[in-house]
């Protein structure tokens, strides 16, 4: 499984309130939520984001509320992967559960700049900055977690295993 796209770059502690503010949580469809993704930190995000693009941020990405709406909005906005130095615990778990690929890599998170072209190989954990030619090695997820993300989330993974 691979991802490739242009980078949106953010800093530390991007919280779930700026990813998807509570005023939009009166609906739960991913497509609807995606219309307001990142609105309180980057009002232009939804107009600029293209399918496959990648979010890169530094530490504690997704801190705050347990709202699964946050990774869901990012996924439905077309983002193929989020790379961060660290993720907040609940966001980390939610992202895997809904099938939004994420990777922790401090060096890549610090180096990569907005608008760089980046590709990610989830099997090896190798992140390549196509713009600069530099590569980074992150810890790949164990196979079952890669399958959960490839299947599109824990529920689909569980039902495909049962089925």
């Amino acid at each position, binding site marked *: 499984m691979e991802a490739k796209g242009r980078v949106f770059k953010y800093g530390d*502690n991007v*919280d779930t*309130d*700026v990813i998807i*503010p*509570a*005023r939009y*949580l*009166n*609906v*739960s469809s991913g497509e609807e939520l995606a219309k307001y993704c990142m609105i*309180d*930190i980057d009002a232009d995000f939804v107009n600029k984001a293209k399918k496959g693009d990648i979010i890169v941020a530094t*530490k*504690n990405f997704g*801190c*705050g*509320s*347990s*709202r*699964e*709406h946050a*990774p*869901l909005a990012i996924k439905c906005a077309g983002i193929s992967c989020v790379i961060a130095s*660290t993720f*907040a*615990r*609940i966001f980390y*778990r*939610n992202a895997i*559960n*809904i099938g939004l690929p994420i990777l922790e890599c401090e060096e890549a998170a610090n180096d990569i700049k907005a608008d760089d072209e980046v590709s990610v190989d989830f099997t090896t954990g190798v992140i390549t900055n196509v713009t600069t030619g530099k590569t980074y090695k992150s810890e790949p997820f164990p196979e079952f977690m890669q399958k959960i993300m490839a299947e599109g*989330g*824990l*529920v*689909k993974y*569980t*039902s495909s295993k*049962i089925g």
Partner: protein
Amino acid sequence: MGMTMTQKILAAHAGLESVKAGQLIQAKLDIVMGNDITTAVAIPEFKKTGATEVFDKEKVVIVLDHFTPNKDIKAAQQCKCSREFAWEKDIKHFYDVGEMGIEHALLPEKGIVAPGEVIIGADSHTCTYGALGAFSTGVGSTDMAIGMATGEAWFKVPSAIKFVLTGKPAKWISGKDIILHIIGKIGVDGALYKSMEFVGDGISHLSMDDRFAMANMAIEAGAKNGIFPVDDKTIAYENDHTTKKYKIFEADEDAEYDEVITIDLSTLRPTISFPHLPDNTKTIDEAESLKVVLDQAVIGSCTNGRLEDMKIAADILRGKKVHKRVRTIVIPATQQIYLDCIKLGYAEDIIKAGAIFSTPTCGPCLGGHMGILAEGERAISTTNRNFVGRMGHTESEVYLASPAVAAASALVGYIADPEKITGGMN
């Protein structure tokens, strides 16, 4: 090697003799909880698992508290879907308008959660029940759905930071000041993925409401859970609130901790988190010197909407008037607390002081309803987050504080020291 209190609870629920930090386990759940926002997302996922019934009708809890009483048509639709699911699945602990309160005040009050249990909730402040000596943690809606279907969840066993609390806090120092001080010290990711285990003789000076406020905000330091030992105060609280049988767990003496931090509670000052992160803390002395002029004060939420918080607010507001510019919104967290406030005269004190006294709701804390801020406005609030746009406009500001600081500040219109405002009243 010994285990922390959290590790012992997790081992017991995974059917294992022992566990160690980093180990992946499957644990049995005593309670699975969700609110109106997160349950709406969990229901379709629950259906996709193929399950037709919840694993135990007495162990699933649904509380409609965030956007209720329904703030708009979309919120009403969302609540309707949770309501119909709860009726259809015959959920015993379903709380709608009339019975509902803010979930993390309601569950302990109703005796639904007890020491030694493993609890997941699709709300990040589910860590509140650690005050009772339970392992409880916030999860997303998918985990809630799988939990409702199977009664189990996987966990990565956390390592822990031990906080040794010593000394007696001064009069105006509440659990809120202590936890804000700790978050200021270690940062919003200072306990990322870890347990915060509170120990030490200082705990004996903390009421259950203080402990609930502290465990509640463990998530604001990135923690997986916050947990207190079970002592006489916990047992007395549970004698009044629960009929459940429970087991008391204690950390092993040789348990390993990533770090040990000692805090002398007698040295703490009232603490305020400035915008826009809970770790951006200042003491009341620094805050007061900045003369932060306020437009709104909010006293309530899952952090500080309990009876003790209402008493402090009423004691400070009694016989006085809030500043004309400060819209003061007081929200008791449950129907029982609301009723107690009426019986004890707090409601009258608060209303006569020019504040509003509302039915329970999470409302303003997350910028849902009941007190949204306009551009450039500032609020002092006893809630738990002050992120950009949390209570309204992205150019508004939230200052997190204790009920005493919020009430004192409401009276004078800027962030103020309750000691000075009250003239040191008892």
